[in-house]
């Protein structure tokens, strides 16, 4: 069907989308760890050229692309005498110059096994709430950025909050009220001010999120011998249920 372009109108969206500004992928081989060594590891450092850090989402596969997991996922080795997690651990940070991907292949002490793995990762860089410089996205071979059959995530709210918790205590950030009436999807990243105010970190065990149908709050447990934290957290709350 031919369409007259003079009859096409664009309905500008009320809510913005995430803006993916670059994709990095690579395949790395990790040798089998030994009991004495404990682990083998690989690091992949890639320059992104933005002059500022960026948010990111990462996925990886250890089975040649059949199944993908998000960075931080822990696929266990089950069976007697007990389950073992963290056999392959993939994480990353993004600085103002580089993407830094770290992969650890840990020895499974419970089952006395060390396996070699080939790990392929994909890392999506996302423009921050505020970028220090104009963005020129890293070119890809993709012909279409949007496919209308998908409902793209729409950003309902975004912002930054501090999460400062002293050693030996627990604490929360300012309570963020969204009043959506349902539990929304979110993304959040933190800057560890004791290390770098610009390097973007993806959430791991700490800090944690507490989401309700009306609010979002960030929590950290620094009780016991934990050293305390001084974080700034950038968050996005999505409209989509």
């Amino acid at each position, binding site marked *: *069907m*031919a*369409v*007259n*372009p003079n009859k*096409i109108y664009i309905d500008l969206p009320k809510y913005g*989308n*995430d*803006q*993916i500004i670059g*994709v990095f992928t690579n395949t790395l081989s990790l040798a089998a760890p030994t009991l004495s060594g404990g682990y083998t590891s690989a690091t992949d450092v890639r320059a992104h050229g933005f002059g500022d850090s960026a948010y990111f*989402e990462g*996925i990886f596969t250890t089975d040649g*692309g*059949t*199944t*993908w*997991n*998000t*960075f*931080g*996922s*822990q*696929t*266990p080795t*089950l069976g007697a005498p007990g*389950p073992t*997690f963290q056999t392959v651990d993939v994480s990353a940070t993004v600085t103002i110059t580089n993407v830094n991907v770290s992969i650890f292949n840990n020895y499974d002490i419970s089952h006395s096994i060390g396996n070699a793995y080939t790990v392929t990762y*994909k890392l*999506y860089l*996302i*423009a921050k709430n505020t970028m220090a410089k104009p963005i020129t*996205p890293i070119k*890809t071979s*993709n012909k*279409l*950025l*949007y*496919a*209308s059959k*998908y*409902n*793209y*995530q729409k950003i309902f709210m975004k912002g930054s909050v501090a999460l400062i918790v002293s050693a030996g205590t627990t604490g929360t950030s300012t309570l963020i009220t969204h009043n959506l009436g349902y*539990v929304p*999807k*979110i*993304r*959040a990243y933190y800057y560890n001010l004791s290390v770098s105010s610009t390097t973007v970190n993806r*959430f*791991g*065990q700490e800090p*944690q*999120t*507490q*989401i*309700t149908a009306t609010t979002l709050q960030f929590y950290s*447990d620094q*009780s016991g011998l934990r050293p305390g934290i001084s974080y700034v957290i950038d968050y996005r709350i999505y409209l*989509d249920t």
Partner: protein
Amino acid sequence: MAINTNIILATSGFSGFGNYKSVSFSVTIPSQNLAIFNYIGPYTASAALNNSNAVTEVQLQYTGLDSFWREVPGYISIIVPNAGAATYEVQSFTYFKNGSVYVDTYISNQSGSTVTIPAITVNCRAFLFIAPF
């Protein structure tokens, strides 16, 4: 100029993540006493959700403990204060494998005495997002 709409649907300078698939699933951990330094688990919640190339998000809620939903960036650990000084730790791990999403939950006694664990239902939501590249 005529446009073939079978080829061009929309254009833009940037793109985000497309909502693709989601599932809700749960597992209930019965109330029980847990001896010193012991652990129970895994209590596995799972559902069919094949992740062949997608960015994911997993959220869970521990009813019986509180009403919050929490992001699970692979692993989450909650230290639960109990009566007196007794505490226990609730840990959940999430992963995709063989066409399904899994959340494995363990509870360990972190105190110096037997603790009573309340009935906990681990409610989970998992999402797949299509990335455009």
